[in-house]
């Protein structure tokens, strides 16, 4: 269980991680797991995994899993009020440092938008960003399978690509249909 003085150490840890999380916080998962579960035992392994699953199932940025980690730690340490403080604390500890850094960067980039340095950065990174996106889709498509149902998940992902590029079906409707297909047990 986490005690009051530990919170400041935790927030400081998240704050430092924030400045090293290029491409979002999902790459930090191994380190956060080591810190919270293995080293300090502030939450259980199951709570840790559940927090990530819920954050991925829920709309909004994935960093909200940090709020869930804080929520679980606070709940164990003393009820719903502490859980809420833990959730907000963990989220802010991550959001504030990187956001201040990015605010300064964004202004600098904006001021130098026609400099050769900024233009080459944007032009150079563009093809990489496109490839990253397609790669995440490919990795995610097979991530939830259990070996037997992989081809069904791939098929659904492939059909989604066709629907988006060829039709005007809203993306939320596609997600809803996917959820219903899964709830009916097609992937079981």
């Amino acid at each position: 269980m986490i005690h009051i003085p530990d919170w400041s150490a935790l927030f400081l840890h998240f704050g430092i991680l924030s400045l090293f999380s290029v491409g979002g916080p999902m790459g930090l998962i191994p380190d956060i797991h080591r810190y919270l579960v293995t080293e300090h035992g502030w939450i259980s392994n199951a709570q840790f995994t559940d927090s990530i699953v819920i954050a991925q199932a829920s709309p909004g940025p994935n960093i909200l899993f940090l709020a869930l980690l804080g929520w679980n730690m606070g709940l164990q340490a003393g009820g719903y009020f502490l859980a809420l403080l833990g959730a907000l604390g963990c989220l802010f500890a991550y959001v504030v440092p990187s956001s201040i850094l990015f605010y300064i960067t964004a202004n600098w980039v904006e001021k130098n938008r026609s400099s050769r340095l900024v233009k080459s950065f944007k032009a150079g990174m563009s093809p990489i960003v496109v490839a990253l996106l397609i790669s995440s889709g490919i990795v995610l498509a097979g991530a939830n399978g259990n070996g037997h149902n992989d081809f069904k998940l791939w098929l659904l992902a492939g059909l989604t690509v066709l629907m988006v590029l060829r039709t005007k079906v809203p993306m939320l409707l596609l997600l809803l249909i996917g959820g219903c297909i899964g709830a009916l047990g097609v992937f079981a």
Partner: protein
Amino acid sequence: MMNEQPLNTPKSPSDLFFSFAGLSIKAFGGIIVFAEQMVVEKKRWLSRKEFLEDWAVAQTMPGAPVMNLSIMIGSRHFGVMGALAGLTGILLLPLILILLLVCAFAYFGEDPRIVGALQGMGAVSAGLLISTGVKLIKPLKVNPLGKTICAILGLSCFGLIALAHYPLATVLICLGPLACILAYFKFTSGSPGESA
């Protein structure tokens, strides 16, 4: 291309807040999919090419890319207020929703229908990510690197991440500087299409 008509700008910080809140609350899976739809297709604040470039900056700096994008668009038009409006828009509603969900999950999380629904939605969001990636290939046609170099960079990035499963940071550190240096030399040699 669709971006021949002039683009719009956000009307006020509250316009930023509500636009980003609206995209965030429906963004299941890859949030960039919904960010692209809102910023480029619905609000027309950026052309597809500008979106890709801004996203490249947002993605290569620390922090969640979509938070960074909201800070960038917000501060461009309304300074600190705009950045805060965009950022809180991204975070507020989904935070409230997820805290309600975690309470519900304690009771229903093991239900096989929930597990199945999550798998189905996961596969659809994978498809959404791929299709957004495909849509963003188009602006690369005017990239000063040229189609061949773009294709080589893109394919090697794809191979390293999706096939060889290298961590994102490693790939960015290896391929990023190389791509930027190549682009830097393209700009010196004064190839066409270097404006904008």
